[in-house]
């Protein structure tokens, strides 16, 4: 059977993906692909990964029935509580998997890019756990707006290296990480989302697939069925969405909704709604949808949320959105801020601003009372309080 998750021998999901990398990185990519294809089927590797997810990360994360959201929006709304993972976001599911792989590959230095700092923190954490050296590239603008996470990374022993080129956000941090990798091919590049050259998108999606694996079990207990009607997740690069959608891609009756950051509005020129504004092109080693001008220069996105402030999306998302399997919705900065505050006030949960976009999508949907809706609550919002406070001061 054909699956949306299948890649061909060059790592393409349909027209998207592949490995568009300088020859300099070829040996690294081949080495990674070999290690990944071996260890993903290795019982000992899987055991170690699963047991760390359980005892260290704190999985399974709860599937929480939100009575308040359900009443407000007229459906049965569940929150998949990835914010309760150790370090406060889904990112750690992936960093634990990749660090175990890096260890088996004999690597001792890890490099990573980060936007919101959640992936940086999760990488620094995994490195501390396994005694690896850790360097995290982070855009200068993000260092400012996600300061608490910079402190956390430093405290965990990681070096945070500012990316000062371009828009000084996630795209530029990724450029700098790739350049460092070219110059230091002995390091392991631990990518934080389902982006980059093959096999990264496939590998990160697999490490995040635990999210939907658990949703299926938990829904069976709570609703007597494995499949929800709708799954909603925000998309920066798309790792939490890939994990939340993973086991539902090939179940056509489950509606999958990817929520992108509209920024100040999709048509304002200050947006990060990649699937609405993007066209096919190559960014960070893969063919995908990306925001670019008519000359093929990559344009600077905007979102209040550092983790969604990225001009591309993972090739799996480009493939599933273009083919109509996944529906993309865009939510503005303001709508996300409102949705975040509403959840804080009614449920006592402060979501990350990235996650708040997924919550903000509820306003745009027409729901039936029996619809079972799962929103992937990808992370907690402690890191965003300063950004939120600034916004409140500006508007009050």
């Amino acid at each position: 059977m054909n699956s949306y998750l299948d890649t061909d021998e060059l790592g393409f999901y349909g027209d998207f993906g592949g490995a568009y990398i300088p020859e300099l990185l070829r040996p690294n990519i081949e080495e990674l692909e070999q290690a990944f294809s071996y260890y993903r089927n290795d019982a000992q590797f899987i055991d170690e990964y699963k047991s760390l997810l359980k005892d260290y990360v704190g999985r399974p994360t709860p599937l929480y029935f939100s009575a308040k959201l359900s009443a407000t929006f007229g459906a049965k709304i569940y929150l998949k509580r990835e914010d309760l993972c150790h370090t406060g976001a889904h990112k750690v599911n992936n960093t634990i998997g990749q660090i175990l792989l890096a260890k088996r590959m004999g690597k001792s230095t890890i490099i990573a890019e980060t936007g919101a700092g959640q992936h940086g923190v999760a990488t620094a954490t995994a490195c501390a756990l396994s005694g690896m050296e850790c360097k995290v590239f982070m855009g200068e603008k993000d260092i400012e707006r996600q300061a608490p996470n910079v402190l956390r990374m430093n405290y965990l022993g990681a070096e945070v290296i500012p990316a000062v080129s371009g828009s000084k956000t996630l795209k530029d941090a990724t450029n700098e990480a790739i350049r460092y990798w070219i110059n230091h091919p002995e390091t392991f590049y631990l990518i934080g989302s389902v982006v980059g050259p093959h096999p990264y998108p496939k590998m990160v999606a697999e490490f995040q697939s635990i999210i939907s694996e658990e949703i299926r079990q938990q829904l069976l207990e709570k609703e007597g069925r494995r499949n929800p009607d709708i799954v909603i997740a925000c998309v920066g690069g798309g790792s939490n969405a890939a994990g939340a959608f993973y086991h539902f891609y090939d179940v056509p009756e489950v509606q999958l909704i990817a929520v992108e950051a509209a920024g100040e509005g999709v048509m304002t020129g200050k947006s990060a709604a990649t699937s609405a504004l993007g066209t096919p092109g190559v960014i960070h080693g893969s063919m995908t949808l990306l925001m670019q001008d008519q000359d093929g220069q990559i344009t600077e996105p905007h979102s209040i949320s550092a983790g969604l402030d990225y001009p591309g999306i993972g090739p799996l998302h480009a493939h599933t959105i273009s083919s109509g399997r996944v529906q993309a919705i865009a939510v503005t900065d303001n709508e996300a801020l409102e949705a975040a505050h509403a959840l804080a006030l009614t449920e006592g949960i402060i979501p990350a601003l990235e996650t708040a976009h997924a919550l903000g999508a509820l306003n745009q949907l027409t729901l039936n009372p029996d619809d079972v809706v799962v929103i992937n609550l990808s992370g907690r919002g402690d890191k965003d309080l300063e950004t939120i406070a600034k916004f409140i001061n500006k508007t009050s």
Partner: protein
Amino acid sequence: MKLKTTHPLLSIFLTAGYPQLNDLPRQLALLEKYGVDFVEVGIPFSDPLADGPVIQESSTIALKNGMQLSLIFQQLKAVNTSVPLVLMGYLNPILQFGMDRFLAEANHVGVKHVVLPDLSIEIYERSYKEIFDHYGVTPCFLVTPKTSDDRIRKAARLSEKGFVYLVSTNATTGSQHLTTLNLQERYREVKSLCGATPVIMGFGIRDKATFEAATVDVDGAIIGSAFIQALGSGKEEEFLAQLKSPK
């Protein structure tokens, strides 16, 4: 371009549109005067992944100046130079321009060779080989000392009407640590694996000494970042004079 390999070939890389938008014709005339064997004309890109700070900066400035692919072709159409030209650029701007249109224009202005660092041999063969063949344009593939022998042979075969671009060391462009000495043996192996296809070394070559060291083992070498720096400070003629005497 049929590369004469009777002497070590000197190639210069520059970013089109840097430091000023319309500098290319004047720069090409100067390079011709100094007997440069071929010139790589870089197409500026917003996110040049394999480049160090010097070429990144030249790209940023060229784009700010308003450089775009269509203008490069316009400028190349107007120049009359005997120096063979190679277009070098990342894939994305070319894909937006249209690969078909890019190759047609290249052919039209007499450019027969392109270097596309982020296009792999595999993707080239699957998606673009046919159309390159149609327009008679040759892709010159990059190899590194770490590239496998089989892959080097394959690159040499696909690039046989041009050259194989040997990246001296694992580094972004402009890096200072050219480790010629301990890699010399590998360079010679690469040269022999490539058979009749010329091997041109790039990355880290910056003056007469490094050029001479590089060309002991291979057919030629490319100077990029160092020339761009000279352009930035208006000292390009002095730079060329220390490499070669004018014709």
